């Protein structure tokens, strides 16, 4: 097993002196004495100092001697039966955002939703969540939400608005449109049908900002089914993805991640690992997880599909633009022939998807990994319908337009022109929950509830239902879209009653209804039925169309979705998501132009200086058809050299919210206008762009080299072959490192069983390896060995299952009241995430296809021999008898010694009062984008079981101690021992791939104990084990199903000089 050279960024790889200086300073900036320079320059600073001292002492005395405030304890007027103050209630519900689906459980405390968990009863998402699902609870308390309906920009009553809209609709003689995103709700579809029956000239158009209509059309042609299949990644042995980021943003990532991870969970006893090929233009998390990855321009993706089809059917040698592409296509075709293959493509081109369908058909995927019996409803939008609607608007043929769930002025390629035309339509209604770009141009804004305030349902797959129930009564004077439609259609019933009636009837009786509401899901019993479909598509025609495509410009633009930001929408105003580092670029708060190192250098970015070490990035201008945006360069190893990639969801209007607001100095740019139409559908790339240097600089807050290990090895990775040959390979390597410490150091050198490293002739025998952990713990130190009497908590993180999606980061943020610090403070490395995901590259930066990526979630390791504990002068951090590294905030005096001494760099200091700064006037620190959090409304999201930390104290992961205490208390109250799995950390619960296992190591029956000692012993390792910190978090080494792990030889030491 070769020790790879891993690097977080080019600056680390190159290790310039400027970078060294940055990482050497634990805290980036000098202490903030800048404010008092006047004082220091004053003629009598000493006297002033004494004056200030005297004044502040006096002031403190006066303040302290004030009387205690009188606090009130106000019970309910009439206590609801099922609420006990202080005890959380859980409601099964559904997250649905334009077809993105997740079955959830809402945790409410004293009537407020504060956390969202996955619903484990769902056979679609299996309890997994995503970063956006986790963060969605913050959107409920968004300050920018409308608090009442608007007519012509003025607050109005529902009665007045209803009357005017009804009159408008009745008077309308032209076609009217109801424009929505994908609607998963069957009852809502019924209501829309009722509405269109009442107003027959209303047409319902479904449109998805990030479109999948190419796929739907191809499926219609290939199988006669205008829908999407269900993909069974768990059954796939060979996975080939052509530009589909199925683990990050494509279609239903939670579902796919769950399935995908099942094929990745290799152990010494079960040597089975799926093989994942990824072809892509930019660097996605699916590509980062792939075993084999090759890049191509987006316009070449069709050719790759054709080559793969030919290689699979005729065995024709591919002739693509790079040898690596050819190699991968050949290998992938060979592997697909072995069966259990699955090919997916992110293309929105009908011809490309037809070829993909043909490949899946030939590979025997239909009915196996591609399920056509139970299909998926996730996306239903049709680009051509939207294009027709826009044409009708332009032609002045639209009498009324009602828009729900989508924001075409922002998200449509020609949104600006569309927005200008809206004024000509007599009746325009938006159901948006805020004054977004489209709502601003509409006559009426009838705000819809947040999904946490709504009744509703979803049907992600035909026959698989999921109910939505509110966790709180509507906060504002909003009204469900369904209620509005029903009112306008003349119904007197409320949607809530209609919905209840609908489901009681459908499920047959109150009892079934109650059960369904409690479970949250209604699904057919047993395993999901699987079936194929006969392929009837015209491959030859599709291949011909693909080959006729014109080659694009030298550089091509990829418009992609970030894991955190998605298509934009309300996510653009979610500060948690803005501050979540992007899995690949580790950038926060802005969008930017992703470029490969070579191309970036060409466009003026110094890879060893300015652009990589300093936060100020060079700005480039991207032009196409009269649209221009200027964006800073972020160098992303693994990008195709001829591709520039920019994320959507940025460049929003100020009225979308404080965090979303953008101008030249903040908030990024909108790149939806760069989407191009191929006549039938919209492509998420643009082949006709020009890119120019500018002399501007723009700061991007990137966290990739914050918390640096300065090159110390923290990862273990091996190939499938290495691991299968010798499953003890990692154990032996660990023995090499720590074996010599497993005996008392004062034993004579020549003692017979004195354990030496393997290199010195020490024997890594089975017995030695088995007792290694124990002996190292006891003998590697002079301190006595403490044995936890009751519980000892431990966590294991599987680097093979972790896909880097960031759901855990957001789960932790919601659970533990983690503060958002804003861009200016992220620039100073002040971010507070207790759990971060470190992303390491290896390979040659100038060869995008050589890049391999590893994710490593990093949190407090709860060392039993913790370096931080020894240096705290006030013992604010110390060890519990359960193995927790405790942090007592009220004891901390903020010396930050612990953070200096932590080898894992997981401690975070509160430089400011992030949550209560508004208690004084004019006391907000930021550029304004994070300040929405200092508000009584937003603070309702805080978890009352976790202290809100104030300025001047250190904080770090607590292993969700509030949950551990709660689990123990529950067991104590029931008078029985705690069961394994009762105590779960937020990160563990949010993980869609079950990469995190947590429990009581003292319990020999627990999953964590079995995993460490039996199931995954061969892959278990501890980070920086040799320094004898004795972490309570272990990792499972990554096994890549590939021939070579790139990097790590001497030739690469001068990599930068050689290659760039």
């Amino acid at each position, binding site marked *: 097993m070769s020790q790879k050279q891993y690097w977080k960024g080019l600056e680390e790889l190159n290790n310039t002196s400027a970078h060294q200086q940055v990482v050497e300073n634990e805290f980036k900036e000098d202490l903030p004495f800048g404010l008092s320079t006047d004082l220091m320059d004053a003629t009598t600073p000493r006297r002033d100092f004494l004056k200030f001292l005297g004044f502040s002492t006096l002031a403190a005395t006066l303040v*302290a001697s004030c009387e*205690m405030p*009188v*606090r*009130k*304890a*106000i*019970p*309910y*007027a*009439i*206590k609801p039966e099922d609420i*006990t*103050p*202080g*005890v959380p209630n859980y409601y099964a519900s559904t997250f649905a955002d334009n077809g993105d689906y997740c079955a959830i459980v809402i945790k409410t405390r004293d009537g407020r939703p504060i956390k969202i968990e996955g619903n484990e009863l769902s056979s679609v998402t299996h309890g997994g969540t995503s970063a956006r699902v986790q963060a969605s609870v913050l959107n409920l308390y968004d300050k920018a939400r409308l608090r009442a309906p608007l007519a012509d920009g003025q607050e109005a009553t529902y009665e007045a608005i209803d009357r005017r809209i009804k009159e408008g609709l009745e008077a309308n003689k032209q076609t009217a449109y109801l424009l929505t995103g994908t609607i998963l709700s069957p009852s809502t579809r019924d209501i829309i049908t009722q509405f269109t029956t009442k107003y027959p000239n209303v047409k319902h158009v479904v449109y998805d900002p990030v479109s999948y209509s190419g796929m739907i059309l191809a499926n219609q042609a290939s199988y006669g089914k205008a829908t999407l299949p269900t993909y069974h990644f768990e059954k796939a042995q060979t996975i080939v993805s052509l530009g589909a980021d199925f683990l990050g943003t494509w279609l239903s990532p939670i579902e796919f991640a769950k399935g995908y991870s099942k094929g990745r969970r290799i152990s010494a006893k079960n040597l089975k690992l799926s093989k994942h090929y990824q072809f892509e233009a930019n660097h996605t998390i699916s590509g980062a997880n792939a075993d084999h990855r090759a890049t191509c321009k987006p316009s070449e993706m069709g050719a790759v599909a054709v080559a793969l089809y030919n290689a699979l059917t005729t065995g024709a040698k591919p002739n693509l633009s790079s040898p690596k592409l050819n190699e991968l296509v050949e290998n992938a075709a060979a592997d697909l022939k072995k069966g259990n293959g699955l090919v997916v493509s992110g293309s929105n081109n009908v011809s490309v998807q037809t070829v993909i369908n043909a490949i899946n058909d030939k590979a025997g995927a239909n009915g196996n990994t591609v399920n056509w019996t139970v299909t998926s409803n996730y996306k239903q939008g049709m680009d051509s319908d939207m294009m027709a609607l826009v044409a009708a608007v332009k032609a002045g043929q639209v009498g009324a337009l009602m828009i729900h769930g989508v924001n075409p002025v922002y998200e449509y390629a020609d949104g600006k022109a569309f927005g200008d035309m809206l004024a000509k339509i007599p009746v325009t209604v938006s159901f948006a929950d805020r004054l977004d770009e489209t709502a601003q141009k509409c006559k009426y804004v009838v705000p819809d509830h947040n999904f946490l305030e709504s009744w509703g349902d979803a049907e992600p797959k035909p026959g698989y239902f999921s109910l939505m129930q509110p966790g709180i009564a509507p906060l504002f004077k909003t009204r469900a879209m369904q209620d509005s439609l029903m009112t306008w259609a003349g119904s007197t019933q409320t949607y809530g009653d209609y919905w209840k009636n609908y489901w009681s009837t459908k499920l047959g009786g109150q009892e079934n209804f109650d059960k369904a509401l409690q479970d949250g899901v209604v699904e057919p019993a047993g395993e999901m039925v699987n079936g194929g479909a006969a392929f009837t598509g015209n491959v030859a025609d599709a291949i011909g169309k693909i080959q006729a495509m014109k080659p694009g410009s030298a550089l091509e633009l990829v418009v992609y979705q970030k894991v955190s930001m998605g298509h934009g929408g309300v996510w653009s105003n979610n500060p948690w998501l803005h501050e979540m580092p992007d899995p690949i670029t580790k950038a926060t708060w802005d969008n930017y132009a992703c470029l490969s190192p070579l191309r970036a250098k060409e466009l003026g970015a110094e890879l060893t200086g300015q652009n990589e070490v300093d936060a100020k990035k060079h700005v480039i201008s991207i032009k196409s058809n009269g649209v221009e945006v200027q964006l800073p360069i972020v160098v992303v190893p693994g990008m195709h050299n001829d591709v520039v990639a920019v994320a959507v969801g940025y460049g929003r209007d100020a009225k979308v919210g404080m965090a979303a607001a953008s101008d030249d100095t903040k908030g990024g740019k909108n790149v939806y206008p760069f989407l191009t139409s191929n006549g039938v559908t919209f492509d998420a790339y643009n082949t006709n762009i020009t890119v120019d240097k500018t002399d501007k600089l723009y700061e991007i807050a990137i966290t990739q080299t914050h918390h640096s290990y300065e090159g110390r090895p923290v990862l273990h990775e091996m190939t499938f072959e290495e691991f299968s040959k010798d499953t003890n390979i990692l154990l032996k390597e660990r023995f090499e490192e720590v074996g010599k410490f497993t005996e008392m150091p004062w034993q004579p050198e020549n003692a017979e069983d004195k354990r030496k490293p393997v290199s010195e002739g020490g024997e890594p025998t089975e017995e030695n390896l088995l007792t290694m952990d124990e002996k190292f713990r006891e003998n590697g130190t002079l301190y006595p060995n403490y*044995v936890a*009497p*009751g*519980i000892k908590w431990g966590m294991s993180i599987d680097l093979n299952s972790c896909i880097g999606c960031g759901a855990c980061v957001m789960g932790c943020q919601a659970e533990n009241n983690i503060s958002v610090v804003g861009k200016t403070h992220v620039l100073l490395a002040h971010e507070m995430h207790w759990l971060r995901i470190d992303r390491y590259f290896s390979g040659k930066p100038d060869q995008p296809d050589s890049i391999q990526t590893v994710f490593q979630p990093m949190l407090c390791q709860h060392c039993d021999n913790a370096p931080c504990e020894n240096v705290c002068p006030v013992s*604010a951090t*110390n060890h*519990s*008898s*359960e193995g*927790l590294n*405790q*942090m*007592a*905030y*009220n*004891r901390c005096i903020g010396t930050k010694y612990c953070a200096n001494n932590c080898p894992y760099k997981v401690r975070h200091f509160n430089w400011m009062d992030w949550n209560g700064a508004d208690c004084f006037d004019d006391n907000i620190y930021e550029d304004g984008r994070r300040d929405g959090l200092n508000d009584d409304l937003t603070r309702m999201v805080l978890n009352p*079981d*976790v*202290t*809100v930390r104030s300025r001047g104290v250190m904080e770090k992961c*607590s292993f969700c*101690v*509030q949950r551990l*205490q709660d689990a*123990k*208390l529950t*067991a*104590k*109250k*029931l*008078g*029985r*021992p*705690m069961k394994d799995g009762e105590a779960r950390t937020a990160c563990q619960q949010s993980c869609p791939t079950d990469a995190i296992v947590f429990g009581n190591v*003292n*319990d020999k029956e627990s999953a964590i104990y079995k995993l460490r000692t039996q199931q995954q012993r061969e892959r278990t390792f501890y980070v920086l084990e040799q320094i004898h910190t004795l972490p309570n978090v272990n990792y499972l080494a990554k096994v890549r199903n590939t021939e070579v792990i790139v990097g790590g030889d001497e030739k690469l030491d001068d990599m930068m000089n050689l290659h760039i």
Partner: protein
Amino acid sequence: MPESLKPLFRRLAHSAIIFVIALFACNFSAFAAPDGKALFQSNCASCHNPLKDATGPALQNVDKSFPSHDWVYGWVHNSSAVIASGDKFANDLYNKFGKTQMTAFPALSKEEIDAILKYVDDYKAPVTATAPEGSSNPNAGAAQDSSYNWVYVMVTIALLTLAIILWRANVSLKRTSNTIEGVPNEKEIPFMRNKLVIAIVAILVFVFAGYWMVNGAIGLGRQQNYQPLQPIFYSHKVHAGINQINCLYCHAGAEKSRQAMIPSPNICMNCHKQINSYTGEADHPLVTAEGKHIDGTAQIQELYKYAGWNPETKQYNRDAKGNIKATPIQWVKIHNLPDHVYFNHSQHVKVGQVQCQRCHGPIQEMDEVYQFAPLSMGWCINCHRQTQVQFANNDYYSIFEKYHQELKTGKRTGVTVEDIGGTECQKCHY
């Protein structure tokens, strides 16, 4: 002064100083002896009254009834063990008081127990002409002690004065003798300018002011004996004391939640739909701490206003949708913990089987509730160190195999909260 007199004076001065120091020492050792009153109030008062039966028996002269003098030590240290041993006296006592087990106090020494017994035997009912029993002056019992102290202080001052006079006389005599013998006298520095005096005074001021300030600072935010006026004069004595209503009837959260829960008016109305006047006026007139007389019936009427109850029609007032028009009562919060403290009632009441009175004091005696305990961290920690967990009774603790082993072999007599990590930071701060 003749030379021969000098040693005499010196000896006299020395012995005076030694005497004074000895006197101080006596005084200090008097302070160091166990303070029965303080011990009683912090450990026993929540369940015992010296003069009458409460949760436990009246303690005055109770020691005369014990089977033996040593019996009480075992009983206080671990009453359940004594009961389990089949001791007849212990079992009778246990049964007499409704099988309520006395909390074990393994940390109390024999001297301390003796001191408590002495205190309760000497205890005299406070003489209060007007104030009702609940608000009796807690300092009444200390009168005798302080008279002793007064004598000590007077003697000390007198002796100090004597020492100073003797010292001054010594100095004057010495100066006189110097003048007579022609030896030059050192110029005498006035008392106030004496550097030694200034230093001593400065140090004393620093020490005492520091002590006072630190104590004051520690006391900031603590509200022991806080007894605010409440929107309704609700008497715990009438409800929990006289009428024997179980605490958990109203404070249902105490066994389920971190909050004990103040009942909402509709809980009150479960009884007060029927009970619309206060009939206990003769036996127990309601009087505030200030001595103002309270009309109990009027207070019930006050409750009706909050609950939205119309006592004439015996119906709730309802709005158009049929919802009861109730308003929440804004009670003044008495027990305030800082935000960084996590306290869970169910952990203590349900799991720990701790009596409410342990922290809330003789709540069944209070007309107006006051904060009985200091609610300081030291107070919490102290209890966690002394209190034994329900180790044998709760199967949760079966995972602590080592302790069970030690209990079996007799190496350990009990498991306190501290032993299972109950004094660690993150048990209460997270």
